[in-house]
């Protein structure tokens, strides 16, 4: 089965446990203003980004690193974009990998239909589930998408005992209000089955891609990477509240 991807990146250490191969699928319903993979938003093949590829070719590429997965409890992560924008393609890859005994992770925005997540549950070992903005109105204006269906998906996955790492991009002055941080903190206690909560500090590495795509970087975004002081603030915020599962990523 064919699909469109931007990249297969091997030896990723930031997309789930162990050493992983991350496949970036093209297409996303959301338009988060801070998106650091803007090249994956459009489903179309663009000048510098995107290629048509067969799911079997992807699987074959992923299998090459099996020894590294075995040694480190790693595996394969589908990311994007929203991988489930190409549901049949994504599910086919996950299914084949599961058959081969390779650990699968799905990095998802939660925006796809519940019926698709029902299928995904069967072939996914771990979900990296984004939690971006607490206030519903802001959620819509910052991501271009309604929050409620996403939370429905989250609740669906939780009630089906999915393993979930909650991933929270943190953009200073954009979404890091106390209310949002407090909600994240509370989610650890409200959903004891969460494996981890990852705080992903904003970085400017995606800016070069915007330039290449001929698109402006949103002017409300910080001009620099998050300063260490702010990282420390986030950490202490969660520490004071007794959070044990919150991890600040690079």
């Amino acid at each position, binding site marked *: 089965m064919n699909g469109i991807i931007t990249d297969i*990146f091997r030896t*990723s*250490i930031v997309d789930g446990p162990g*050493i992983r191969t991350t496949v970036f699928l093209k297409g996303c319903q959301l338009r988060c203003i801070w998106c650091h993979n803007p090249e994956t938003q459009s489903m179309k093949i663009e000048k510098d980004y995107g290629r048509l590829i067969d799911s079997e070719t992807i699987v074959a590429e992923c299998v090459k690193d099996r020894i*590294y997965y075995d*040694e*480190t409890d790693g595996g394969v992560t589908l990311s994007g974009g929203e991988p489930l924008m190409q549901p049949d393609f994504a599910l086919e890859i996950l299914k084949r990998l599961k058959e081969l005994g390779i650990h699968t992770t799905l990095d998802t925005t939660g925006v796809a239909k519940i019926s698709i997540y029902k299928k995904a549950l069967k072939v996914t070992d771990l979900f990296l589930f984004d939690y971006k903005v607490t206030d519903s109105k802001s959620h819509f204006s910052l991501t271009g998408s309604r929050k409620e269906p996403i939370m429905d998906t989250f609740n669906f996955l939780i009630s089906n005992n999915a393993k979930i790492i909650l991933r929270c991009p943190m953009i200073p002055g954009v979404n890091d209000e106390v209310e949002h941080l407090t909600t994240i903190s509370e989610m650890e206690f409200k959903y004891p089955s969460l494996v981890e909560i990852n705080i992903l500090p904003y970085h400017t590495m995606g800016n070069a891609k915007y330039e290449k795509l001929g698109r402006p970087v949103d002017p409300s975004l910080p001009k620099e990477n998050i300063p260490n002081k702010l990282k420390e603030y986030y950490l202490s915020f969660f520490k004071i509240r007794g959070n044990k599962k919150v991890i600040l990523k690079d």
Partner: protein
Amino acid sequence: MATKREIDMLGLDYALKFTAAYQQGSKQNKYIRETLCEDLQFPAVLVSPRTTDILCGKRMYPEVGYSPQYGGMGYYFDATSWEGENAVVNYTSDELLEWNSLKKFWETEATAVKCFNSFSYEIKNRLWDKYDGGNVLRHPAYPLYRMAGLQMDYKKLIDNGIIGLELEINQLIEKAKDDEAKMFYTSAIKSVKRIRTCISHYILDAEKLPATEKKRKMVAALSGLLDHAPKTFHEGIQLILLVQTITGTINFGRMDIVLGNLLVNDLDNNVMTWEEGIEIMQNFYTILEEEIWHFDARIIVGGLGRTNVAAADKFAMLAMETTDSLSLPMPQVSLRFYEGQNPELLEKAYDVIGNGKTFPMLYNDDVNVSAVEKAFHVDRQTAEQYLPFGCGEYMIDKQSCGTPNVIINLQRCLELAMNNGRCLRFNDQRSPDYGNIETYTNIEQLWSAYENTVNYFLEAGAKGQESIYKITGQECPFSLISVLYDDCLAAGRSIFDGGIKYLGGTCETYGNNNTADSLTAIDELIFKASKYSGAELLTALKANWEDFDSIHKSFKDAPKFGNDNDIADAMQARVHEQVCLGTTTAAKETSLHHWLVVIINNNHNTLWGKETSASADGRKNGEPLAPGNSASAGADKSGLSALLNSQAKPDPTIHAGAVHNVKLSANFPKKNRNLYHSLFRSYFKKGGTQTMVTVTSRADLEAALETPEKYANLLVRVGGFSARFIDLDKPTQMEILSRTEH
């Protein structure tokens, strides 16, 4: 320290005396000649210790001298300090006349010149004589005049001491089988006594130092060596350093086997503390850093074939801890390891590498020992004594010489094969006309022309290597080295005159992976897809890709080695196999025991890149060639495991060492220690032979270009050697920057 060792100056009087000794000796025989010259060299060239030293063993290589490699090979003469544009000394006209007459004499007498003169027309025609240290490398292959890769039996030296060696040789003299043996033994005994002379000289030197604890220890160790075989770690390492200094052999081999027992004995009996051991080692490392080229000073620890494992492991830990405690680009500590070895060694190694020290380099014995067995045609026990030396060539400890006396640029060979044997930039004929890419209709025709071109140079190379050994054997007994090489004393023959057990050598190949990527791109785009014609490619290459953006992009985007890509890696394997087997085949026409490819790198990838025309892998003229068995700059885009998988593929059983550079972002080992260890463990499980890791960050490298004074400790692995980044020339700095950071 500079990457190129400058000649030291002892002046005209010394040069005249040395030359007179050489002339006088030449009237008799090579053994007497060597004795006369060496007696003049030592202790004259020795350099005094400083107040901060605890060990002695520094020397000069003056304008005229005798050495296996440094200064020049065998009897050498170097005029750079007194003539030419960069004359260091202004001599009077009378003195210059004398210098000129000396120069005239050595123009035919220097051993390297004699080697070249011994070449047949075929060798001279195919290998270029004008190797100038790598400044201009217009030709695809050159002979190198040196006896690199000598590793003496330091265990024998330590176990027997000077006295033991003297005893052994004295007994042999009495029953010498013939006159040749007798002359050799006589020279040999004198060479051992010369160690005494040098020790006595250093004792007097040391006495002049202010009274400190270091001086007291130094004098005690030196004095002890005159009296007995080394009894302490300090005495042992002192004797090794001194004998290395006198012989100019510049690598140290399996020091853990040699010094492990003395170290443990000292620690157990409170003769020395661990900290005192570190202090001695730090001084040792500092001296090596000052004295020896970045390309050498290998210290090997760990690995199969050790009998005193526990004690040797102790030394290994000491060596790695010393590396960690300093930030020096030397010595080149290398860890051999195998499944079942004390895991602490490898753990320690990963941590020291993770701290950005570039050492130790890692060698996987589970693959390498059987590979050496096959490549060198030796039994397993012998193969267990393989040693990486210099930039990464293998030799057999005290039984072979690994010297590479030929360098060949495969990408230049491909260039000639595409263009009737003519260089693309200057159109001059450098090899026979095997055809032109404009007329080839399939990859096999190009391949055949390429193979013929490579073999054309290799055939001459093998004969050149043989010839260099032959002349060296006739001219230079290297008696002290011979004393400490297996079989020489027993045979009554000096090392290169019938003494050495395995007379083999190596051939350095460059541009292997550019060649493979070029061939892949040509096959994919010209022969398979018919997207471009051979003529179009030639035109674009001749124009150095300028104004050929679209075709340039296509060739750049073709599959590349370093991405675990089956198409690219299959071509790389083909290129690898061809040159490896071509080399061994070429040696079949000679008396060499083996002649094997080494895929190593000093900075010839950068130097040769300047003279290599644009290539079909998308590289432009002037850009460096890929270092060793690494991907071309920035071509490894699929992630680290993909690079490692590609690097683990080439057959290790048909060559004598390949080096693999990996550049890691500092954050990786720092924040993901376990993953970082596991990653390399997996690579080695997959059959990886070797790796050398630079841990740094692009930001640091860029900052070091701006404010070098703040980055004196920033170490990088260039190819077969490490260096302070700020000491490198600009093109090499840019080449390091251009590598993918994982």
